[in-house]
């Protein structure tokens, strides 16, 4: 399933700017599993629908360390590893 979303905020600046659009594909992902450097959309409890870049796939591939590009981005440094069930999609197209 594909989902068109609009980026709000500057956590992934300058790669993704506020007002950009992304097309996110939910599992099963067209390009296989989630890997480091993929940009994913997550539904993080207490934080809402977020877009982050995968820094590292942890353990058995069921959780991910995600990061923004800014010093004060809200990411795994705040809420810890993201569990696989909270990943809503993987960005397959970035419309800037």
């Amino acid at each position, binding site marked *: 399933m594909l*989902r*068109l*979303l*609009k*980026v*709000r*905020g*500057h*956590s*992934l*600046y*300058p790669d*993704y*700017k*506020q007002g*950009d*659009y*992304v097309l*996110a594909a939910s599992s099963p992902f067209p390009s296989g599993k989630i890997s480091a450097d993929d940009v994913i*959309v997550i539904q993080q409890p207490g*934080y*809402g*629908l*977020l*877009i*982050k870049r995968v820094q590292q796939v942890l353990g058995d591939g069921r959780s991910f360390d995600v990061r*923004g590009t*800014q010093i*004060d*981005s*809200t990411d795994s440094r*705040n809420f810890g590893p993201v569990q696989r069930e909270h990943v809503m999609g993987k960005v397959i197209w970035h*419309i*800037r």
Partner: protein
Amino acid sequence: MSKKLIQKIEAWHPIDEVQAHCDIPCGIYDPHHAQIGALTVVRMVDLIADQVKEHGKGSTAEFINGMARFIAIKEEHAELVKHETRIIWGDFIKQPHLEEFPQLNGLVHKIMQLGSKARQTADRETALGLLDAVNEFAEIFWQIKGKETKRVKAPYAVTEEMVVPIL
């Protein structure tokens, strides 16, 4: 598919937003304290002028006590303006905001300078200049937050204009 085409589609069919948060989501920033500080400086300058008008160059205990209090509050609130502005500029404002509003750094510097001058003098023009600059800063802040603003007469003992968000 181009961004312009999607923007046209979005005009009649809303597209969900995905958050690329900076700072903690519950981060609370508001230029209101800086605005109150600037209005207070104007009020203290007015009270100082009234005191001089009433007592001339008198040196009664009442005169000296009143003046000392007005000056102390003016000092405190001019510094409050500088402090609150610095917090928003340093913690909330990000590089993309500076690119979108290239006047921001100059405006913050102006607030710092006028804040200091407002402490050094009892000049009403300086106090009003500080308030103007803080209002401009508030307008930019709310624009960044995606909120429209309006200018209203302050509902206080000084009724100069202040910028408020339309929430």
